[in-house]
């Protein structure tokens, strides 16, 4: 048996042999393309922990969907989207009409939502169901789940392309956007408020799609980890977005391969791989640690 054959067996045959592995791979890849760039925007807006908060915020919605319809994907997904958007919307309103900033109001509201969600789930379901919701299983993606993830990824990518300039301006210089709004009436946050809310909606639907493949907690990992490491590699935003997606794709692929061979849960393994990429980036990326050590010589200008 040649080396090539061994490599094929290790890297390709799991997907060639098993349909559930193929579905998991496609779902993870779709999510990588849409969630990771959103994560980059979250870090740019200094809202890195917002994904985390929102992923908890969707829990009561998922729980209500689960209570009413059992382990039904559309019901739980719809519940999650509704709950997430509600929390994001309330947080947006709070920051708009009180002195609290967005992150503070979101932290308060998501904690309430999380408490509600955990209470609902533990009253109604068993521990196993809770685990399934929290940690998901990429290997359990069915046709419906695949369709959901693919739709969410397509919508997010299209929306991101359409919103790109506005989002960049809103993240970079929200005051400028507010005072440059073309319509007369400008409030305290001006036109930027709309961009921010649409962006949060995108984050919510990606988290809900991710909760199916990877579980609520792990969905955030695929969104944020590649995004954080991508920022170490490039000085321009388009490069960071592509880098984040590529890192998420790599993590997804190798995570699935490893979880297959080592018989580990797929979600945490994928996030583990993203974590390895993150630590590697910390070391060798241009913004990382080692280049600072190596770059002892300096130019004259």
């Amino acid at each position, binding site marked *: 048996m040649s080396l090539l054959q061994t490599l094929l067996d290790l890297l390709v045959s799991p997907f060639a042999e098993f349909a559930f592995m193929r579905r998991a791979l496609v779902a993870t890849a779709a999510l990588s393309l849409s969630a990771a760039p959103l994560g980059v925007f979250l870090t740019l807006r200094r809202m890195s922990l917002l994904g985390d908060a929102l992923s908890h915020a969707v829990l009561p919605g998922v729980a209500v969907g689960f209570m009413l319809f059992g382990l039904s994907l559309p019901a739980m997904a719809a519940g999650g989207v509704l709950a997430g958007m509600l929390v994001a919307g309330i947080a947006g309103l709070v920051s708009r009409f009180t002195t609290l900033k967005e992150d503070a109001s979101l932290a308060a509201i998501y904690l309430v939502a999380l408490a509600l969600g955990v209470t609902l789930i533990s009253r109604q379901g068993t521990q196993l169901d809770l685990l399934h919701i929290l940690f998901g299983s990429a290997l359990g993606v069915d046709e419906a789940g695949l369709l959901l993830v693919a739709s969410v990824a397509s919508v997010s990518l299209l929306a991101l392309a359409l919103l790109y300039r506005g989002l*960049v*301006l809103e993240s*970079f210089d929200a*005051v400028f956007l507010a*005072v440059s709004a073309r319509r007369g009436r400008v409030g*305290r946050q001006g036109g930027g408020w709309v961009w921010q809310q649409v962006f949060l909606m995108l984050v919510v639907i990606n988290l809900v799609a991710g909760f199916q493949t990877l579980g609520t907690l792990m969905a955030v990992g695929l969104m944020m980890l590649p995004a954080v490491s991508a920022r170490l590699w490039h*000085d321009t935003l388009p490069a960071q977005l592509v880098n984040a997606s590529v890192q998420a794709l790599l993590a997804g692929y190798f995570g699935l391969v490893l979880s297959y061979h080592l018989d580990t849960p797929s979600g945490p393994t994928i996030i583990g791989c993203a974590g390895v990429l993150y630590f590697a980036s910390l070391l060798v990326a241009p913004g990382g640690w080692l280049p600072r050590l190596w770059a002892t010589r300096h130019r004259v200008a």
Partner: protein
Amino acid sequence: MHYDANTKPFSTTALPIPTTHATEDFAPQKATLERAGLAGMAPGTGSAACRLAAVVGRGLGQWRGRKPLVFLVVWPMVTLDNLTVSYRQHPALHHVSGHFAPGSLTAVVGPNGSGKSTLLKSIMGLLPLSGGQLSLTTPRSRMAYLPQVAEVDRSFPMVVQDCVLLGFWPSLGAWGGVTAAQSDQVLAALQAVGLAGFEYRPLNSLSSGQFQRVMFARLLVQDAQLILLDEPFNAMDSKTTAALLALIAQWHQQERTVIAVLHNDTQVRQHFPKTLLLARELVAWGDTAQVMTEPHLRQARALAEAWDDEAEFCDIDTPLRDTRSARSTA
């Protein structure tokens, strides 16, 4: 500076109402109005027609004073009428009234906490008014505002060229394509602020002085009629300050209205014909030499510190006439 008024692509488009008396402050005197047969039409009575009439009246007055036979129509760019802005019921600006004439170059000075930034923000519509009225004669798309340095994210992964291009946002919006002429304007603006060759430098590699030059390049491409600058020379060295002051002088020549918050009295005296001295209340407003006097400055220092939780509610009660966002922040 390599910024040539003839080769530059920035157009000096006409004001909404043409003005030929730009440097002179607009302050319609009652006597002037009466002479013109317009008694009773004091400024601040609200209607734009009244103000226009007042302005024409002033033109007549000028003509009587044996100035050339031109009807001067000087419509104030910004009119403050008993403007009050409060944070939690404590006024940051207290019943400030007056006008910024089109083409005027005004320094806003006063101690810390005297409401200078608040004034700029309320002109830009970023703060709700808690009393009085503020009216503008220029559309929002022709206004530009440079906040204090600290309010912009300088670590953002963006190259200089893109940052300057954002100045076209009001005309391009979220989806418009950048034309070749606009790209040329960006290059010219970068040249004007002394940053030629910096187009593809990431913002996070710039010093604070260079970053402020980029912000001024963005102001240049915005081609605004009313430009508000909040402490534009904070932490700038003398060379950068001189370069940026030259740009401001050029805007003044092009009859743009410039309002700048400043802390350096020497700069104000040397480069700004008009001064507005604030200490939450209006201390003095007019020609710089008359405003920047020691009694005025002493008065400003004394006024600025008061903040009393037990203070009476103000009874200089003006009806809330502003339609935009006059609501209490309480």
